């Protein structure tokens, strides 16, 4: 069960203005502000409504397929030769990733607010697919903004969204990737503010999005608490998850933030290397303001946002959720990074010895497991968040391996 936050809790944020330490806040155009207040009120109201929770729990069980299993990766554990490694199988959710948890919550909120038109941005396409799926289920119009570059490297997901009845809008401005898709979604929202609900895919954006998306994703960590009790009779000793914006990581971490015995690791995408092109905002960025919040960002000396690079389209974002930025500042979460090459190697390892094809995003978390787990005793319990499945990434991996997979 969840431990109730105490006054000194790491779980009390944000403050009423959406700040996590110096991060977070609400940095958006005036047109959106009234709607953001309306959304905040609607979310606060929904949180208190047992009927909302009941409906959410029902759909999570019967439509999403929760709880997702926690799987003891015996052969991976043997190969690494240290900690006992468990995988939280978010890849087994309907639509194939953790994204659906948050989208379900936001779509239910949109329905509650009477909004019939849903917009979303997507990088790898998993958030877009989850949004298209829930819009189909509930009969809502769905428009997904996706960078033209990402459409090229994630074509199967674009086809899935089309099949589900969503309209995928290619974004060709800026670097034609996730940050530009988010700019376009914000432009759409400003234009159609009366009719439209913006379903943000990660723990970023203006308050209350970072807190709201986190709350919807906490189902991951809440389940892990119960499942590890059942499997081992105690809490895990360490948690690892990949971080782009950071929603799967926040969902796993948040319920454990006040458990001092639990070590927490977030893994950013180091791309070609931290001294070259990468997407590691904490390792290689500094605090700035973009997309409605203050957080660590990749930028040049004049505050112009730089393009991020990762082999994983889902991590290819020049920022990180503001709560992660704060958890870094206060030292509660250890932020590491894994390169494209390390992620591809981890991808192959899990395929080969566990029969699971991980998303390239999750492969970044897996890439750091050997170096951490090998140093731990055999009774150390480590949980890795397998945030999504990797079918969508086979082309990217094949291209990296010279066509051979």
């Amino acid at each position, binding site marked *: 069960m969840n431990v109730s936050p105490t006054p000194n809790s790491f779980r009390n944020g944000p403050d009423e*203005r959406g700040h996590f330490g110096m991060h977070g*806040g*609400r*940095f*958006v*155009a*005036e*047109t*959106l*502000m*009234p*709607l953001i207040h309306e959304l905040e009120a609607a979310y606060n109201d929904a949180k208190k409504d047992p009927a909302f929770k009941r409906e959410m729990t029902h759909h999570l069980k019967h439509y999403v397929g929760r709880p997702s299993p926690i799987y003891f990766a015996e052969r991976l554990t043997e190969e690494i030769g240290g900690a006992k490694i468990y995988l939280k199988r978010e890849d087994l959710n309907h639509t194939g990733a953790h994204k659906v948890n948050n989208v379900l919550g936001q779509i239910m909120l949109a329905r509650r607010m009477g909004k019939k038109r849903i917009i979303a941005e997507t990088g790898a396409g998993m958030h877009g697919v989850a949004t298209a799926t829930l819009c189909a289920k509930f009969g809502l119009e769905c428009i997904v903004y996706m960078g033209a570059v990402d459409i090229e490297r994630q074509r199967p997901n674009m086809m899935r969204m089309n099949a589900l009845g969503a309209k995928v809008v290619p974004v060709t*401005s*800026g670097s034609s990737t996730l*940050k*530009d898709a988010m*700019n376009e979604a*914000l*432009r759409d929202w*400003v*234009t*159609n*503010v*009366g009719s439209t609900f913006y379903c943000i895919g990660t723990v970023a954006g203006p308050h209350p999005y970072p807190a709201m998306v986190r709350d919807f994703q906490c189902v991951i960590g809440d389940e892990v608490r119960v499942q590890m009790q059942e499997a081992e009779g105690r809490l895990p000793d360490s948690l690892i998850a990949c971080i782009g914006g950071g929603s799967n990581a926040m969902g796993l971490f948040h319920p454990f933030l006040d458990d001092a015995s639990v070590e927490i690791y977030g893994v950013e995408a180091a791309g070609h290397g931290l001294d070259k092109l990468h997407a590691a905002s904490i390792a290689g960025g500094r605090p*700035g*303001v*973009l*997309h*409605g919040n203050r957080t660590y*960002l990749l*930028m040049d*000396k*004049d*505050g*112009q*946002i730089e393009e991020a690079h990762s082999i994983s389209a889902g991590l290819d974002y020049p920022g990180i959720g503001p709560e992660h930025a704060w958890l870094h500042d206060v030292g509660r979460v250890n932020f590491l990074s894994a390169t494209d090459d390390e992620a591809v190697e981890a991808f192959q390892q899990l395929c080969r010895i566990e029969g699971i094809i991980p998303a390239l995003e999750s492969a970044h978390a897996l890439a750091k497991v050997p170096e951490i787990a090998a140093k731990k005793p055999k009774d150390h319990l480590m949980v890795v968040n397998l945030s999504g499945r990797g079918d969508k990434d086979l082309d990217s991996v094949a291209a990296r391996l010279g066509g051979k997979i």
Partner: protein
Amino acid sequence: MTTRIDTRLADLKAQGRAALVTFLTAGDPDPKLSLEILRALPKAGADMIELGMPFTDPMADGPAIQASSQRALKGGATLAKTLDMVRTFRKDEAATPIILMGYYNPIYIYGVDKFLADAKDAGVDGLIVVDLPPEEDEELCLPALKAGLNFIRLATPTTDDKRLPAVLANTSGFVYYVSITGITGTAKPDANAVAKAVARIKGHTKLPVAVGFGVRTAEDARAIASKADGVVVGSALIDALKGTLDAEGRGNGKTVSAVTSLVSSLAEGVRSARSA
């Protein structure tokens, strides 16, 4: 204290006409032509100048201004160079107010206190920072007011009577009414709706109200100027500039005049509004 913006708007009110506020992006299409355009604007009929601070991710702007920012950045634009441009302009133009318009991140990275001091010193009169709503007033608005710069806030069709007092609380110089829900340079404003909105805002403040977003022609300008204290034109001027560029985005001898001739026509529209 009285700023150039206050003085200019009071003068125009005495003359019985609205102000023409023209927008250009600093450094577009290149630093030299951009400065030439800036210097030519007052003579062409601009009463106040909004100078865009280029940013990689202008979330509230339409395609014309986005592309304009990209051209400027490609040409090496920085916030420091934008301030230098104002400083140069001020050498031979003392009366026309300059309002810097943009997004917060470049200012935040430059350093708020240093930015305010340098902007004031360069001859900047006011700021419009699109992604700083009143909820974030401590960031820049309050320090700017203290530094003697006007902080001009946007009010929009979604800003209802309940929210309007919060939006107006620390606004100075004038109120910028965004006539559409949308991004710059897209939909055309409805003059009757604008008139109602201006009257509504004036019920809450003594500040002048300027209206922008979607104004393209002398006709549009005339229609808005008959209802408001100012008309802001941006994307149409950027489009005029863009129309002279070659495939690589380079300007030529026609670039400055393409902008100034449209400004002259808009100025005529504005000047004829109340006499019509």
